[in-house]
């Protein structure tokens, strides 16, 4: 095992920048993958031999992954546990990662798979703790319209089936198109579309007739 991994270690390098045209144009771009990543630590590469560089790299993607995993798992402690596993798996997989997918997509896919594994292990559908969603200090203090609607949509989101929740988060909150969301979820784009449609319909209901 050890020898196998070392044989597959790619040489150190920084990579040709992602460009809009390479990803199908601005309309096809995911929000954060087109944002410049921070410079690599010490100007060096990201390999499975440099945990610090790897951590610096994943910090660029950490917030969107937290956003997704928390909404899928519904608990902050579980989110942390899942993301520890996600990053560990990604670190192990570095030698075999050849850039066929964008790094963000790759990490999303790992994260989704870990969430599925964890949910299967727990044998239950999670529910986002509603009181927590409403009572977080920075939300609870704001009785404005948007804050309330956020609470409503968070509640409705937490009650969606897992597949719909993941689809609508990837497409509507994270900006993926159906094709790439399908890559992450392991389903055809059309399936993503139908899941998103059902999810949106449910969420619109939660916001009331005005929305």
């Amino acid at each position: 095992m050890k020898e196998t991994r070392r044989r597959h270690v790619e040489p150190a390098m920084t990579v040709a920048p992602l460009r809009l045209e390479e990803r199908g144009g601005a309309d096809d771009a995911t929000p954060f993958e087109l944002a410049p990543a921070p410079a690599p630590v010490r100007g060096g590469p990201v390999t499975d031999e440099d945990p610090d560089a790897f951590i610096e790299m994943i910090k660029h993607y950490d917030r969107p992954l937290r956003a997704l995993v928390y909404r899928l798992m519904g608990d902050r402690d579980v989110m942390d546990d899942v993301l520890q596993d996600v990053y560990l798996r990604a670190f192990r997989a570095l030698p075999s990662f050849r850039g066929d997918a964008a790094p963000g997509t790759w990490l999303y896919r790992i994260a989704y798979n870990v969430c599925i594994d964890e949910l299967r292990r727990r044998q239950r559908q999670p529910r986002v703790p509603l009181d927590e969603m409403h009572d977080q200090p920075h939300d609870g203090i704001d009785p404005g319209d948007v804050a309330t609607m956020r609470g409503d949509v968070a509640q409705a989101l937490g009650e969606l089936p897992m597949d719909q929740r993941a689809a609508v988060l990837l497409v509507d909150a994270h900006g993926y198109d159906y094709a790439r969301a399908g890559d992450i979820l392991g389903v055809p784009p059309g399936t993503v579309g139908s899941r998103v449609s059902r999810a949106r319909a449910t969420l619109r209901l939660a916001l009331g007739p005005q929305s």
Partner: protein
Amino acid sequence: MIRRRGGDTTVAALLRQLPVPEHADDFFDRLRAQLYAESDVSVDTAASTVIDLSVRRGDRRQERSRTQRMLRSATAPAAAVACFVLVVGGGLLARRTAEERQRPSGAAPATARDFTAAKNQRFVVPQPYTPAKTGVRVRFGTNMPGHVPNREVQVQSFEGVISPAGDYHLSRVAPSIEVNFSAQSGSRTMYQVVKGKPSVLYQSDLPLGPPEPPDQANLPATLSRDLGAAVRAINAERPADVKRTERLGRPALEMTDQGSGGTLFQKQHVIVDVRTGFPLLVEQWKADGTLYRTLDVTEIVDDQPIPASMIAPPLPTATTQSTESKHFAASTLADVAKAVGYQPLVPLSMPAGFELARVATAPSLDPVDGQTNPAYADVVALVYRRGLDTVTVTTRRAAPAGALGSVSAPGVVPAPLATTAPLQLKDPLVQGTPLPDMSQPTTISTGALAGDVVNVGIYPVVWPHVWAQHGDLIITIAGDLNRRELLQVAGSLQAYVH
């Protein structure tokens, strides 16, 4: 790309605004330990659960250096073309040259001396009120607007104290919330009992005001001060639409409005305190006639000094503490150009009495809605104060569409748009909300924006404001100004050269 309209846009915007929890404090320490343990598996003999990082990291680095030197020398040419895409280098998107980025196109720069001289040339627009200068104490009841069918309107009681410097303390009686805000440092401390646990959230580097979302601004959003400023501005230009009245023994402005609430509410009735600009009564109804929001001030005092102990009282002890930065770092006019890479546009002329109170910059901001306006970068915000009155002037770059989204990493600066072609922008003050864009175009004839069409928004749901696109910059001026004042300030903007 998915096109969304109407309710889907609202849903998407709300999904992007959902809070994202932080990791536990030791998250990355634990991860680092795991990764080093994992890394050891391939170098040493067995994984260890307890790692002395200080010793073993050094050993590993020596080993790595040898390995990497060997790999680099053997495969460097291939490395240059291979696509092991894990690090996206800086400068990956088309950037303008440094010279091009430095100066907003068409702007004639003014020096610091010009701005100093201009301080004594403030213009005066007659006001129907004398701005309050002693701070305000207020008690009021308001509700959390309901969107879920059959949700009851529950009024909660608040008390607030706001100083003329902009500091405030706000408390909700039950369930208990205590908020201290410091205008000088741009920080806020919020105490609340969450799931039975007393919690404190420290927020730093808060935005200075609109167009950033109201829950991040420098006034308690609960008091709807923006609505008060709007009614005062409407009164200045269309006095027939506003009725002079009295409430709580104080001179007040009263107006009824239909249609400006977008999909939030159909009709509203507002009474605004003339001296302080705070609404004394707000009632908003949905299309079906049910109450959407209510705000009822029961006591307001503005002619007595506010002791410091009332502005920042000690908060109860909390068992849970968390911190959050909103990324608006304090700066000075002399330093902002270095921070953002261009000369900011600064007003040479402000209404009499307004003084520059705070300057801040933010490297990148999530777009408010993400579906219409691009993400923002290199934001410069200036807030001017005249007692309780404020004006916020911001300049920001439009980042490439989709470059940030709500998932941007703090501190990541996107490339600016490499085009000066007009963007299809929405009003930055209402984008991402169900409120309509009712701003009206007007051409500016002086200053850096000479020849530009700016949009003036005076309607009773948002701060009175002007917004415009100038090259790849987006300009906003918002606050306690009427149309004439807004246009005069907009026409006095100049690129600032220190």
